[in-house]
């Protein structure tokens, strides 16, 4: 048995924001909500239950406590009024999982073609990829911890996928 735990986090709010990520108003609105810096391409800046995830050249995912989502959407709406953007509460459209324990990279590597070696994937990075048959985004809030989001409609599938992948334990592909 591997010592990997899979937990579904249900109290996290998520806002998908699309717009011009080089725009100062957008960047400062985001950092005002997350309390951290604005991430570069391919990076995630997360602390506690707040954070900014770079999803694509025109999209960030804002993480924050669920009860703050309504207020945050209003803040974004007024900060970005007049500029072309889209801000949507996707808290209930996404499922968030936390993986903790040993053999994280090995376990996930069974499910994804993405390179999860420490050289390309570590704390601070985000990788949108495929877990078996569905899309997911992975990031590491800290060493020995991986958070991932997928569509809520496939959350049960992903949960079982992760549990089955964890059952076999590490295979020694990545150093522990």
């Amino acid at each position: 048995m591997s010592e990997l735990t899979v937990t579904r986090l249900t109290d996290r709010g998520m806002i998908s924001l699309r717009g011009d990520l080089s725009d100062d108003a957008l960047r400062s609105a985001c950092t005002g909500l997350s309390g951290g810096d604005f991430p570069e391409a391919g990076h995630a800046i997360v602390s506690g239950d707040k954070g900014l995830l770079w999803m694509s050249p025109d999209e960030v995912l804002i993480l924050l406590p669920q009860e703050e989502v309504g207020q945050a959407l209003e803040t974004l709406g007024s900060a970005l009024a007049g500029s072309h953007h889209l801000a949507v509460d996707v808290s209930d459209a996404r499922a968030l999982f936390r993986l903790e324990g040993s053999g994280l990279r090995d376990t996930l590597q069974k499910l994804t073609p993405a390179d999860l070696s420490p050289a390309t994937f570590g704390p601070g990075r985000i990788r949108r990829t495929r877990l078996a048959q569905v899309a997911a985004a992975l990031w590491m809030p800290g060493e020995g911890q991986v958070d991932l989001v997928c569509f809520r409609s496939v959350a049960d599938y992903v949960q079982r996928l992760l549990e089955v992948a964890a059952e076999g334990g590490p295979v020694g592909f990545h150093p522990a």
Partner: protein
Amino acid sequence: MLIFTCPCCGERADETELSPGGEAHIERQSVESSDEAFEGYLFIRENPRGVHFERWRHAYGCGKWFNAARCTVTLEVFGTYPAQTMRPPQDLLDHISQRRPGWTWRDLA
């Protein structure tokens, strides 16, 4: 197995994270065009043995379209470049000429 570096997000993406989008640099023809031009736009494709230019979409990643140059025989990837171009960048063409001297594709060589 093809591995492309997405020029939009910079990730090295495996073939299974991408959706193929057919041949690159196809110029759209519309109602005013001649029958030959419209037929070419709809049906006539290169289908080369060797150097080929294709469109791919980073479907499981950033979701953006990009263009890629690869060899259909060996699956060697010569490079990728943004979709918002009418023609492959010159440094990519030079690189292909180095790897496959004498190659041609449509009016490129």
